[in-house]
């Protein structure tokens, strides 16, 4: 059977992963800012959506940036 050893293939996973987490981050942040405050009685009035939204945006940016830098050093 054919061997495909050494052939760099597949696209960079960091792009869909970063996009998904980035989308979640923005969504949570917006919902945390604009949504009803009543839902946070469950979490002792801590608006976890804002905190988690920002955190996820940071993680997503790290993935997307590292993917972008990785590509530009190769070429």
């Amino acid at each position: 059977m054919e061997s495909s050893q050494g052939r760099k293939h597949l696209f960079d996973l960091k792009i869909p992963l970063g996009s998904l987490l980035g989308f979640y981050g923005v969504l949570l942040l917006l919902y945390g800012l604009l949504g009803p405050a009543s839902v946070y009685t469950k979490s002792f009035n801590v608006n976890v959506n804002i905190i988690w939204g920002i955190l996820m945006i940071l993680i997503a940016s790290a993935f997307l940036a590292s993917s972008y830098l990785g590509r530009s050093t190769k070429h």
Partner: protein
Amino acid sequence: MTPVISMNFIDYTILAAYVIITIVVGYALKKYMKTSEDFFLSGRSLPSWITSLAFLSANLGALEVIGMVANSAKYGILTVHFYWIGAIPAMIFLGIFMMPFYYSSRVRSVPEYLKLRYNEATRGLNALSFAIMTLLMSGISMYAMALLFELMLGWSLTSSILLSAIVVLIYVFFGGLSSSIYNEVIQFFLIWLGLLPVVYIGLHAVGGFEGLVRRIPASFMHAWQPMSSAANNPMGVDWIGVVLGLGFVLSFGYWTTDFLVVQRAMASEDLAAARRTPLVASFPKMLVPIIVVIPGLLAVALLPQFKIASGAVAQGGATPDYNSALILMFAHYLPNGILGLAITGLLASFMSGMAGNVTAFNTVWTYDIYGSYIKKNMPDQHYLKMGKYATIFGVLFSVGTAYIVQSFPNLMDYMQLIFTFFNAPLFATFLLGMFWKKATPWGGFFGLLSGILAAAFHYFVLYRPGIVHYPSEMAANFYQAWWAWCADFVVTIVVSLFTAKKEESALAGLVYGLTPRPHSGSTLFRKPEFWAVVSLVMMVALNIIFW
């Protein structure tokens, strides 16, 4: 029955975005699938950070998460044994000692190694039992998932089963192992990001870690102290059972020979990366208790039905449904938004668990059953196509199993039990195969068969009718694994002494002493040995801290 959790449009948007991205990723991988190796082994081209996270996630299925949270609510911090002693030594052993044989011999599956090292019969026994068990387990976990989503969200069993089956079918059909691995990495992040808020808000509610310690029984905070005798701890296991049964046989049997996990390491870009895969994975593995053990302890501290300290459980009579511990934590403490993320994390681990089973099945089916016994020596494209058909068949068979289990719920425990018959002894066959060049082909076959039969004998003839007693079901399970392993080990050696050996030239690359020592990575951070030492030190330190 009203659902425990009510999701709103934000939660559903989060769930839908996950489903869409998995299908897009699967479809986008389609054009890279040119040969059977691309489809079954990702063309052996993935970097070790991806294979490591997939290696870990393949074992972090939702059933496992729910079950381990339940264990922690029931037994406390003893549950860490499944993550530390019950995983780390085996992962290190795989990376340092076994991976060179798996990767350098260019075998494409675990059964194929058995064929090269022993004979066709040993491969056949392992391939058939693995293929059948994998699909049955996939069906069982699909059913369990459907039950959970019915309880949680009120979805019907059929709609959960169809949703997961269709999504998994689409992405594995197009992208093979690469799809499966990419989804496992996505799942890794979702399950951590989804469960950490429960820990954060829960700790906030009990007043930090000290507050948690004050509210749970003292024995819940020690991993080894209650282990001096089986009677002293709620798990009913002594330290010998934990070390031999869980730490040695079950853990090594699972992490070093189960193709579902080994396949992830085989997909690495080179030998050094393949060896680093389980070693790098051991670090997040040690930290998994943060998202499974702490929520279980928090459930004991916060939810009245699990309060053991106050005696509510002991006196109340009714045993709480420990499996609902995590879901009740979601329901009580997660506001909408973050709630959707947690549920998506669970759904993701269900789906990737199922996809993992399906990809391991289609590889073993195509290479070790179809390509070895049914149609040999066909062009590569033929096997690629067969892999895709096997994916469809595998998913349909899993759906069928899910419906059969629905009518006979007791089957579920039964099949999980039978699975251990096949898994436990296999490690003896590998250990002797890789490190003792005098082990003969028929020694391997009869050793493996004896191990399986010994496990069955122990269960059906000795344990079930009550001839031997154990303090708990778990202790019985640990000791059964140990005796099955011993039977395999002894029979393999005895039969090897009386049967014909293989030529040494046929064993090159397969056995220790006949294989060139692997070339380690160039820098310290690329050397597998470096990571093995760091990982081992960290594991010992954690055990001492939570002594």
